[in-house]
């Protein structure tokens, strides 16, 4: 009984991002037992959990997996769902509550020193709803309203630092906050990130390049107000669905409005928000608590997990991944980042912050692979997509750490040069700026290498009319970039390509508004999804131009010369990727490039790019398979051979990665033509080395963790009167305390009885116990 409850609780406490990789032995995986438990096989999860998960799975791209082999499984599952439905179909509860299904919570994240995010009390925070549409409405909530606490339904445009500070100052009157999406996005920009992202974890510090440390030169993200790095003591939810917002507003208008500012009569419309977080204070504290639990307890209650996922990487020419490269092998690295974030959990569209750049790099990888002499170039090219860069460079710091420790096939000294794509989709007048690091160029050789790098890029750009490459002033620091982590370890010659010369052009850096519209990806009305998928937007053309420049530059850097002008990135690839990542993941092309068991990961909306905890997110998988299909080769293997190519003498698992993908639909669109794709696209663990080394207070490596929780949900209902409810609340608490006391007493009594029988007399024990308690 005890074991089963704890199992189901643990399943509840985590939202699933997908299947665990079948590598539980991966370092940093603290308790292997969890791997099995976390697999989202609903028939194992049971009624309670499946009811809990419904509605939440949408963001994680859940759904029914209808493999032909698993029909019976499906039936079992549907039976479970039916049972859950029956249990949940309490009609009285339906008379009282309206659950809000399309919400995203703000959750607690922790680093070495701080906690950020939000939380509710353990039984959820309830407050009378008040709609705040303009700043004057706040007056009612903060001072005038007679029925505190309030849950504020805040208009998206008012979700600013000013307003939030006011609310935070009166947190006794605020039970929680529900934020609606602003449409259109705020014109003046909105970025909950800080003005100097990833400060302290890049290459500049007070001891190295102190004039550049802490963005002293200038703030990269000027609109950043740092909201996402604040700690709030009340829950904050995002209302993603306009219909639900309207239902709440209607309830508010019906019950909570009174003529000329008098107190409205009960019953009042109220909202309850549940987002209780288990972890507190900092990563140091919560990891220590988890460790103590897992070393002593049979069913440990882990309180937080390190943010971690997988980097995606591939090589132009396959190498043996079971060993490491020879020191004189040269590799050109092309890097970009995969992830973004926003104020809310798992809402991270990151169109400009991440998606546009990694799509450009994918297109460049495809273009370069098509060069006729790609396999015979003197130097190799490595494409890396770093995960978790938003949270103090998790992916790149891990890769550098692995390279230093010989756990990665490519070593630091193999790196010939480093080309990184920053944000590239919002170029003014064709300019693409080349950012370099002034500190490393104090070294003469590095200076020369960078000079070569820049001129190579300029030559490559010369043949592309839509891109003009521009150099920057020598004394300008690098923007936040993965290159900084490599520079910390070694003076490599590197460049960061970006659309901005100083501060970001992106007005919505790491916010919920960093969507397709932000980078002008729009489609003519009235088209079918299939037409949209293949419609080449202007943004796609522009990004294809950048991809062409990148591919040609990499070709030259790798020592190629003869086919330079034939290398051309395909705008069709770019536009399909843009559509898939930013508009609709569940499209025919993404379906055809994915493994059959992953197809349910594709939802009808855009993919989210928040780094997960311990399992590849949907986006990571899609990037890996897009890379595999764009750079790989379809080879003639059966399904079994593809899944275990070691039986085929001509194939080598150390050189290549083999994937069995669904393939496109056949001519009459009934069946798919599955096939085997051979590529070099692989995943590499992106868990911060701080957790590998158990240095949870590290200032060298990222220490971000995500708190666990049991229950995240929101609902609205009517309350009859506030005072009595509070009274009852305290009564319930009293009962709870009394119950715990009784428990304690009985334990003590048992102990006493067991140990010193004569001392246990009905006259003395309660007082003695109370004193001890």
């Amino acid at each position, binding site marked *: 009984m005890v074991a089963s409850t704890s199992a189901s609780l643990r399943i509840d406490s985590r939202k699933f991002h997908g299947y665990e990789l079948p590598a539980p032995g991966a370092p940093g995986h603290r308790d292997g037992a969890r791997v099995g438990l976390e697999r989202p096989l609903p028939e194992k999860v049971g009624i309670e959990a499946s009811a809990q998960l419904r509605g939440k799975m949408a963001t994680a791209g859940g759904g029914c997996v209808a493999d032909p082999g698993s029909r019976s499984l499906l039936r079992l599952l549907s039976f479970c769902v039916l049972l859950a439905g029956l249990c949940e179909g309490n009609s009285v509860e339906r008379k009282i509550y*309206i659950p809000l299904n399309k919400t995203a919570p703000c959750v607690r994240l922790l680093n070495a020193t701080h906690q950020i995010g939000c939380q509710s009390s353990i039984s959820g925070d309830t407050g009378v709803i008040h709609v705040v549409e303009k700043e004057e409405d706040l007056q009612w909530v903060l001072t005038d309203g007679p029925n505190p606490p309030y849950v504020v339904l805040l208009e998206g445009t008012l979700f600013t630092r000013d307003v939030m500070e006011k609310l935070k100052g009166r947190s006794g009157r605020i039970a929680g906050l529900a934020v609606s999406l602003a449409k259109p996005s705020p014109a003046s920009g909105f970025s909950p990130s800080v003005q100097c992202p990833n400060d302290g974890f890049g290459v500049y510090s007070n001891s190295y390049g102190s004039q550049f440390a802490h963005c002293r030169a200038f703030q990269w993200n000027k609109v950043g107000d740092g909201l996402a790095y604040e700690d709030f003591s009340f829950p904050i939810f995002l209302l993603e669905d306009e219909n639900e917002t309207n239902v709440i507003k209607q309830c508010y208008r019906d019950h909570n409005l009174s003529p000329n500012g008098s107190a409205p009569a009960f019953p009042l419309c*109220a909202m309850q928000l549940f987002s209780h977080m288990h972890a507190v204070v900092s990563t140091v504290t919560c990891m220590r608590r988890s460790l103590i639990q897992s070393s002593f307890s049979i069913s440990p209650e882990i309180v937080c997990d390190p943010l971690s996922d997988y980097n995606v990487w591939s090589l132009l020419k396959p190498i043996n991944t079971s060993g490491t490269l020879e020191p004189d092998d040269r590799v050109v690295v092309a890097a970009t980042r995969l992830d973004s974030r926003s104020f809310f959990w798992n809402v991270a569209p990151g169109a400009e912050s991440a998606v546009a750049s990694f799509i450009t790099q994918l297109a460049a990888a495809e273009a370069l692979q098509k060069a006729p002499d790609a396999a015979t170039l003197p130097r190799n090219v490595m494409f890396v997509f770093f995960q978790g860069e938003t949270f103090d460079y998790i992916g790149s710091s891990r890769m550098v750490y692995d390279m230093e420790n010989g756990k990665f096939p490519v070593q630091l000294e193999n790196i010939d040069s480093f080309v990184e794509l920053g944000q590239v989709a919002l170029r003014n007048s064709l300019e693409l700026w080349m950012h370099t690091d002034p500190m490393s160029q104090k070294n003469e050789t590095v200076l020369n290498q960078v000079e070569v790098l820049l001129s190579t890029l300029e030559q490559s750009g010369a043949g592309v009319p839509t891109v003009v490459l521009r150099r920057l002033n020598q004394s300008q620091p690098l923007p936040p970039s993965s290159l900084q982590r490599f520079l910390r370890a070694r003076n490599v010659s590197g460049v960061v390509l970006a659309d901005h010369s100083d501060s970001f052009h992106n007005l919505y850096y790491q916010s919920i508004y960093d969507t397709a519209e932000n980078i002008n990806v729009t489609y003519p009305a009235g088209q079918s999804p299939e037409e949209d998928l293949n419609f080449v937007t202007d943004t796609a053309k522009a990004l294809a131009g950048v991809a062409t420049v990148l591919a040609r530059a990499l070709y030259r850097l790798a020592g190629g010369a003869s086919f330079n002008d034939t290398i051309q990135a395909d705008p069709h690839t770019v536009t399909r990727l843009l559509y898939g990542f930013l508009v609709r993941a569940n499209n025919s092309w993404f379906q055809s490039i994915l493994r059959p068991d992953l197809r349910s990961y594709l939802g009808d909306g855009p993919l989210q790019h928040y780094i997960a905890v311990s399992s590849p997110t949907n986006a990571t998988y899609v990037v890996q398979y897009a890379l595999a299909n764009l750079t790989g080769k379809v080879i003639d293997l059966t399904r079994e051979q593809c899944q275990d190519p070691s039986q085929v003498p001509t194939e080598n698992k150390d050189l290549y990665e083999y994937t069995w993908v669904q393939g496109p639909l056949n001519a009459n669109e009934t069946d798919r033509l599955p096939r085997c794709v051979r590529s070099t696209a692989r995943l590499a663990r992106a868990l911060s080395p701080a957790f590998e080394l158990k240095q949870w207070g590290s200032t060298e490596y990222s220490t971000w963790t995500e708190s666990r929780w049991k229950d995240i949900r929101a609902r609205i209902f009517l309350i*009859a009167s506030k005072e009595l409810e509070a009274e009852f609340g305290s009564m319930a608490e009293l009962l709870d305390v009394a119950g715990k006391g009784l428990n304690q007493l009985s334990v003590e009594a048992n102990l006493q009885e067991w140990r010193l029988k004569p001392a246990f007399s009905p006259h003395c024990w309660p007082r003695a116990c109370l004193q001890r308690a």
Partner: protein
Amino acid sequence: MTAAVFFGCAFIAFGPALALYIFTIVTEPLRIIFLIIGAFFWLVSLLFSSLIWFTTATLIGNKDEPREKYLLIFGVLISVLIQEMFRFAYYKLLKKASEGLKTINPYEKAPSMRLLAYVSGLGFGIMSGVFSFVNTLSDSLGPGTVGIHGDPPQFFLYSAFMTLVITLLHVFWGIVFFDGCEKKKWYTLLVVLLSHLLVSALTLISPHYGLNLVLAYIIMVLMGVWAFFVSGGSCRSLKLCLLCQDKDFLLFNQRAR
């Protein structure tokens, strides 16, 4: 207000049954046993009716609005039939048991069938009351109250009174039913069945709470009067009781004279 609603509704629904239990049942262990067996029989009848309802629901499968409603009506009717069948089965069991009791203990009088009818009816009533109301009662603890979809806010109060009337009706039905069986007046069984069906069907017209409460209470009063006379009451004994001249009225009356 949620706590007030909770306690108020709980006492309305279960107060009378609790009082009857304390004043008439607790006094003798045998009565407690028969009460619990009665409650158990009602539970088994619920199990059977829910099995039937569940299999029908899975067989039909489709979940559209009118069909669910018809399924619910069907479920209620089946449940009433099964409950009455179990009442009859319980009667048969008691019949055998009282003969057995006589042979075990010939010196003491076995409880009369009238008393057993009352005890078993109360057992049925308490169990059905608990099952129909406890879930609702737990929801009354809040934090919300009924009304967000425009339902009347007196829903909990209505449910409490409905539970009360069902509990008392089960007592009366038990008395009348057993008496009918004893005297082989089979039409009483039919009347009990029909009135049970009627009261259950009344709850299906849920928004008109006032109407069906009033009707249910009228039926309860009628059944109560019938049960009173069936169990040997008369105008005279009622008068004596009301004037407090016969203090042992309720208990005394139950003994076989």
